[in-house]
């Protein structure tokens, strides 16, 4: 029954409904796959007992005809989501063995709909990273390798565990979060589909915060349809998160296969970077042609402030992070290092508990908010953010339905390859951060491979709360490009 793990959620849903297999069998197949793939380091905590219990409950509900939309679907959960009575660490040593007495809103909704928890997935520490190398549990390995090479590649980050597990069929789908590209970049690196919904679409309650004004939860899955299915369960207004928006959640799956005829697709000229690999350029044109062939109209658009987005992002996000991470002080929970006095306790605890990248961002954030620097950095970055938002608004005001861009400037790179220069790492987010800065939805869809056989993705950026259009367009690309799975080597 090992081929159960290769099913999409939509296929598994049909199989469960027709009683071709049980939720328990589906879960067991995944638990076995997880066990066999520990070398990928995608999971930081496996919860087989909980998984079997939930699968059994799902089977009972399915038998009674009461199965929810995700009844019996086994999922992995990024370790940034608080899971009640199950260790939640954000992959930081500072949270230690933290076991929350509460469940995040997003995962609560998944369990409400019948999903099964397989375990907690690795990520960059506090979601700060683009390669999943900053996790205190060690790096995650991408199941993809270059043709004829044994080089271990990163899955991207920060949702590297989510992307790797979905691509390697260690779960049918996964939750992820995206602050500057943390869903879309790893999706692109692993030939999976990842969508960052509009800011406010999913509740942030119970998700360990990185940068509150940018963080948003979303799914990673193996097809556009699967992403749409997961999205519907994850989304929704939550009175406990006042930045979540009280508007109805549509049936995203209904958008799959909808005609895109007459839609205007913007191609932003500022995203054509100097020195961009030809294969990325080619992929981008191909994607545009597929959408055109489906009846969409291509228009060149301008997003003039794009070049300021990355520097502004690396001011706003660390500023918020420096404050959000102040609660990890050793006083109430998590790691506490001994010391002679309180100041020393703070210093020792935070020096020992935070990894290098987190420390760097806390320092940057503290600096840009300091008296005398606030106006020059934080305030200017916020102004840039307003301009970036306006760029998109102007574009959509001209009737553009969605914007097509590459998802990443390159394919997956090797572990340790980009460790030395943080800016080189930050450049991974160049196509994705603008979307977070503007609070818009963005989806990454696999669109092809580079010359070395590594997957590449395209990104579609939509109007606020119009994720449906992204699913419709993403499906066109998926239909044209096909779906990709890595050759199993582990």
């Amino acid at each position, binding site marked *: 029954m090992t081929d159960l793990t290769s099913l999409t959620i939509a296929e598994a849903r049909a199989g469960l409904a027709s009683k071709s297999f049980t939720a328990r069998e589906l879960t067991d197949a995944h638990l076995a796959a997880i066990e066999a793939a520990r070398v990928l380091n995608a999971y930081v905590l496996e919860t087989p007992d909980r998984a079997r219990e939930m699968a059994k409950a799902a089977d009972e509900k399915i038998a009674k005809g009461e199965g929810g939309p995700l009844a019996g679907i086994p999922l992995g959960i990024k370790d940034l*989501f*608080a899971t009640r009575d199950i260790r939640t660490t954000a992959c930081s040593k500072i949270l230690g063995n933290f076991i929350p007495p509460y469940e995040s809103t997003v995962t609560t909704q998944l369990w409400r709909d019948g999903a099964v928890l397989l375990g907690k997935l690795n990520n960059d520490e506090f979601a700060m990273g683009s390669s999943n190398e900053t996790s205190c549990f060690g790096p995650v390995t991408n199941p993809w390798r270059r043709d004829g090479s044994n080089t271990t590649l990163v899955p991207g980050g920060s949702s590297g565990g989510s992307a790797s597990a979905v691509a390697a069929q260690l779960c049918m789908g996964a939750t992820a979060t995206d602050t500057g590209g943390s869903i879309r970049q790893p999706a692109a690196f692993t030939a999976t589909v990842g969508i960052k919904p509009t800011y406010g679409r999913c509740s942030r309650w119970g998700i360990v915060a990185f940068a509150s004004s940018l963080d948003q939860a979303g799914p990673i899955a193996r097809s556009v349809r699967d992403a749409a299915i997961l999205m519907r369960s994850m989304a929704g207004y939550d009175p406990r998160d006042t930045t979540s928006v009280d508007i109805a959640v549509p049936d995203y799956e209904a958008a799959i296969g909808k005609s895109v005829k007459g839609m205007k697709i913007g191609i932003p000229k500022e995203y054509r970077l100097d020195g961009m690999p030809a294969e990325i350029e080619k992929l981008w044109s191909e994607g545009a042609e597929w959408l055109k062939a489906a009846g969409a109209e291509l228009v060149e658009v301008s997003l003039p402030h794009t070049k300021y987005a990355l520097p502004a992002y690396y001011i706003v996000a660390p500023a918020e992070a420096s404050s959000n991470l102040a*609660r990890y002080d050793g*006083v109430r929970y998590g790691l506490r290092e001994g010391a002679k006095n309180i100041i020393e306790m703070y210093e020792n605890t935070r020096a020992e508990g935070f990894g290098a990248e987190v420390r760097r961002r806390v320092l940057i954030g503290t600096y840009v908010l300091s008296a005398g620097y606030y106006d020059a950095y934080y305030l200017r970055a916020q102004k840039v953010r307003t301009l970036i938002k306006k760029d998109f608004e102007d574009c959509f005001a001209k009737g553009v339905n969605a914007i097509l861009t590459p998802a990443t400037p390159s394919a997956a790179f090797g572990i340790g390859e980009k460790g030395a220069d943080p800016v080189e790492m930050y450049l991974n987010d160049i196509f994705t951060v603008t979307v977070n800065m503007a609070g818009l939805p963005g989806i990454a869809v696999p669109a092809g491979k580079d010359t070395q056989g590594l997957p590449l993705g395209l990104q579609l950026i939509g109007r606020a709360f119009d994720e449906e259009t992204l699913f419709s367009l993403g499906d066109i690309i998926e239909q044209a490009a096909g779906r990709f799975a890595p050759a199993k080597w582990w």
Partner: protein
Amino acid sequence: MNAPAAPHKLIKGATGDWEVVIGMEIHAQVTSNSKLFSGASTAFGGEPNSHVSLVDAAMPGMLPVINEECVRQAVRTGLGLNAKINLRSVFDRKNYFYPDLPQGYQISQYKSPIVGEGEVELELDGGRSVTIGIERLHLEQDAGKLLHDQSPTMSYVDLNRSGVALMEIVSKPDIRDAEQAKAYVTKLRSILRYLGTCDGDMEKGSLRADVNVSVRKPGGPLGTRCEIKNMNSVNFIGQAIEYEARRQIDIIEDGGTIDQETRLFDPNKVETRSMRSKEEAHDYRYFPDPDLLPLEFSQAFVDDLKAQLPELPDAKRSRFITGFGLSSYDASVLVAERESAEFYETVLAGLADKARDGKLAANWVINELFGRLNKESMDIASSPVSAAQLGAIVDLIGEGTISGKIAKDLFEIVWQEGGDPRELVETRGMKQVTDLGAIEKVVDDIIAANPDKVEQAKAKPQLVGWFVGQVMKSSGGKANPQAVNDLLKSKLGI
């Protein structure tokens, strides 16, 4: 030059007079059932850490949600201070590390507070009054409390207060001496208590003041200020200002300069001490809290609250003066505390003739009741004499059933034993005797028994008082004094 007398006190120094300039930041705990951003209870005195939600403990992934009642309370307060209400305000984070601050930042309002400029009118001794400007009022979270006495080696933290809503009310530097400062705090406290937006309990820390003090030559440029932190008594505020002003004057007159710093008042030594200098001040790195949207509400929301505002002390005071002929002093005494004013109003409401006896009722509330309560160290809430009982006593005096003197005896009986005053007067035979025949007999007896006094009284009519006294004594105080007086005058021919 004949300058008008300064409405405030100047301090004499070796180089001449000095003027004190004072501004205050009052932290008032908002009266609400739950905290500013969480559903945890605000009840005082619970077991440590028994009123702590996941948000208050700053668990990972927890988010603040504004408590609308706290917003209403801040708006009410703003209206009570005749202040501008800002329909849009912003919550900011004030970042610093301390074990009583779980989030590592306090959610406050920095650049855009909920309430803008307003003013408070102070009545000072001698009928003087002065207006103190309000700079702003903003909402913020309180911190928890460190417990240092629970263990020889550790400090414990109680987060019950963590996240409780405070209003910080910032005055303009309009206060000029300790008397004004004390009057300002007293008045502000009174307004808050009338509004029901803060219980004003300074002992429990519901109202605390940071006092900024500087000195200058009258009319000269402002001096460097020092901030005296966390004062929780009106008297201490007065003492601290007197001390601090003198300290600064002495330094300047000795050729020194004032360092801007934060100081603490030691009530035992009656002095202020340096806590931290400007250089040691925190860099709070304020920035808008990204977990909270700007706070926005409509003018209709404000208007609705305004329409339901209770009568405030100033308005009540003038109503008492014009409506019932109270003296300015008596009216001030009655309105100073909301409970006193309410008690008086309840007495008034039960009177048979408010216009006739309103002033009499005020005398009885202030002199007999408050006097007695003070003597027994009791407050009005625990008064054994109710407003209805006191009102009945005043009615009995007003309608002439009992004399003022008997009324005092009656008050004592009601205080000790309780009971319906009107019934007591009946059952205990305390009714004033107005039967002229009965009184006349007593009068005749006294006149007959004292021929020498009668002669003296004819020469010196004031001696009628002695006769009145004798008649009252003989009647057990129950004779109507007016009737006795009239009878005596006619019988004695004076």
